């Protein structure tokens, strides 16, 4: 009896290949049925995200099962050319370790990202609902979730934001606390400033004002952010009520200067002001940060912090792997201790199955 994973990810395959192998969420149940019918697998689970497509499976013999799973992938997706070169494969301990690492975000493009755990959970419940999992995969996935929880709470692998937008949100939260009462002004609608505004909105930022030289673009972004578009001439007058400013205009000279800020800060009664300057050349005079309660970050500052956080996560990798090794060992022990009983159960089911139709029901 072997555990197997066959799949590809962002490292092994380019997006053109990954998208051809992706399974749509809506027909996962059907795919599971086809997979189990076409291959000698005992249990299976399909994990399909934008960065990876993986089939986890339990088979009587890996040697027999692997070629059929590979064949299934090609046939199911009607691939004209073989993608075998992009596929990797791990067995038994390797498979267990791989799933645990995936669930913990160690195998993700952004190390330690947490979205993957939700995706693994969805993949597992889809497989379970399709009746594709059994005693072994059920336990394997449960233990993967437990390992992820353990690693998240005891290491710093998920700590610190790693993109400009989320770093800006972290900073905003360390200045203002909850963002519900904060109003944000977006001046200029670049890609990064939109992402930053979106990140602030997703963490509950209050009012969002958008202004741009081209009013339609301001309108579009304002609608998306559920904010309000204001004309470019208006920004200065609205400025005093704003807590967070994201600036990314194409202006050749600073549009916000220390001299302009001094009276505004007085009117704000020293309530903090968070200035995010994403423009190059910069929109906000560096000297503004000399003022009390003004916190100014430009694109380089944010990128440096994001990179440092990434490096800090990278340093946690070894500690995570040590913890994962413990979890893997525990699962391997369980599997060894129960191998006889599990194999017996599947043998008797096969015997029954020859009498009736094949059924893959969750064993637990």
């Amino acid at each position: 009896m072997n555990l197997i994973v066959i799949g590809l990810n962002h490292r092994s395959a380019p997006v053109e290949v990954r998208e051809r192998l992706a399974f749509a969420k809506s027909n996962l149940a059907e795919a599971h049925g086809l997979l189990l019918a076409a291959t000698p697998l005992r249990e299976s689970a399909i994990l399909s995200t934008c960065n990876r497509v993986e089939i986890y499976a339990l088979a009587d013999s890996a040697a027999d099962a692997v070629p059929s799973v590979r064949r299934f992938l090609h046939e199911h997706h009607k691939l004209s050319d073989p993608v075998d070169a992009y596929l990797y494969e791990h067995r038994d301990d390797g498979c267990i370790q791989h799933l645990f690492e995936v669930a913990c975000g160690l195998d993700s493009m952004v190390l330690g990202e947490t979205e993957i755990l939700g995706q693994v959970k969805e993949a597992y419940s889809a497989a379970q609902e399709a009746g594709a999992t059994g005693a072994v995969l059920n336990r394997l996935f449960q233990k993967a979730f437990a390992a992820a929880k353990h690693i998240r709470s005891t290491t710093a692998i998920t700590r610190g934001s790693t993109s400009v937008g989320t770093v800006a949100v972290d900073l905003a939260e360390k200045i203002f606390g909850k963002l519900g009462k904060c109003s944000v002004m977006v001046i200029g609608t670049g890609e990064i400033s939109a992402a930053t505004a979106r990140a602030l909105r997703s963490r509950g930022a209050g009012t969002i004002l958008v202004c741009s030289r081209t009013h339609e673009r301001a309108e579009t972004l304002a609608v998306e952010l559920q904010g309000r578009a204001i004309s470019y001439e208006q920004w200065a007058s609205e400025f005093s009520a704003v807590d967070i400013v994201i600036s990314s205009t194409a202006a050749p000279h600073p549009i916000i200067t220390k001299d302009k800020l001094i009276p505004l800060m007085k009117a704000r009664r020293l309530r903090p002001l968070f200035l995010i300057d994403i423009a190059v050349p910069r929109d906000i005079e560096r000297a503004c940060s000399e003022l009390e309660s003004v916190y100014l970050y430009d694109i380089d500052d944010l990128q440096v912090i994001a990179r440092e956080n990434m490096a800090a996560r990278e340093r946690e990798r070894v500690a995570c792997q040590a913890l994962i090794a413990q979890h893997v060992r525990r699962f391997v022990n369980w599997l060894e201790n129960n191998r006889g009983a599990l194999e017996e159960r599947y043998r008797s089911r096969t015997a029954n199955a020859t009498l009736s139709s094949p059924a893959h029901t969750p064993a637990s």
Partner: protein
Amino acid sequence: MLTDRTFLWLAQVFYAASCVVTLRRLRAGGGGTNLQRTNYVVMAAGFALHTVFLYLRGQALGRCPLTNLFETQAFVAWAAVLFFLLIGPSYRVSFLGAFTAPLVLVICLAALISPVDVVRAEPLVRSGWIEFHAAIAILAYGAFALAFVTGAMYLLQERQLKTRRLTSSFLLLPSIEQLDVIHFRLLIMGFTMLTVAMIGGVISYRIVGHWTTPKIIWASSVWVLYGALVLARGLWTLRGRKVAVASMTSFVLMLVGFWGVNLLQP
């Protein structure tokens, strides 16, 4: 020999342990909220022993244990921990214990090591008003001590935000706005209690009339100092960093004045 002082020493073991937990949290880069809970439990255990000390001492004296500098210092530290235990969870101030424990440890160890635990030569004037006055004043100092702590946290976090150099404490520390608000609340609480204590002091003076001039000057200065601070923050004249600096300075001045008054004129 198991004396009441032993319990105070034991409490210090827990406060020291809390400092160790903090160092571990910093090394873990902020990973693990379970350490925050551990820290709270450790501080609560220290507080329990600390309370046993005050209780035993109070029983032995047959009055509120504020008869010498040693007892007073231990009492102020106790009040600071009390405020930490109350405020930490209710306002969800993360990392408050990390700053409270070292301060409390310093105040208590200074009291335990220095030869200030002496029995008074002349018996103290007994008066309910005096004890009431003293106990409330000590609670006020406890609130000011915790204001000192939140002020220190504010300055550290504000500095990181301003200089854009984020250390491992960045994610553990609360936002500067939250610290500013809690700081102000502690100042109000402290000042209110101090005002009540002052009124108690005036009444007991009229009844017993034993206060010395340096003590009256010191107490009035502290009251004026903190009163001005509360007013300035309330009217938004001062905010944030300046309030933190002013409050921390006031606390240090208060302690220095306190030692001065008590050591020079027991």
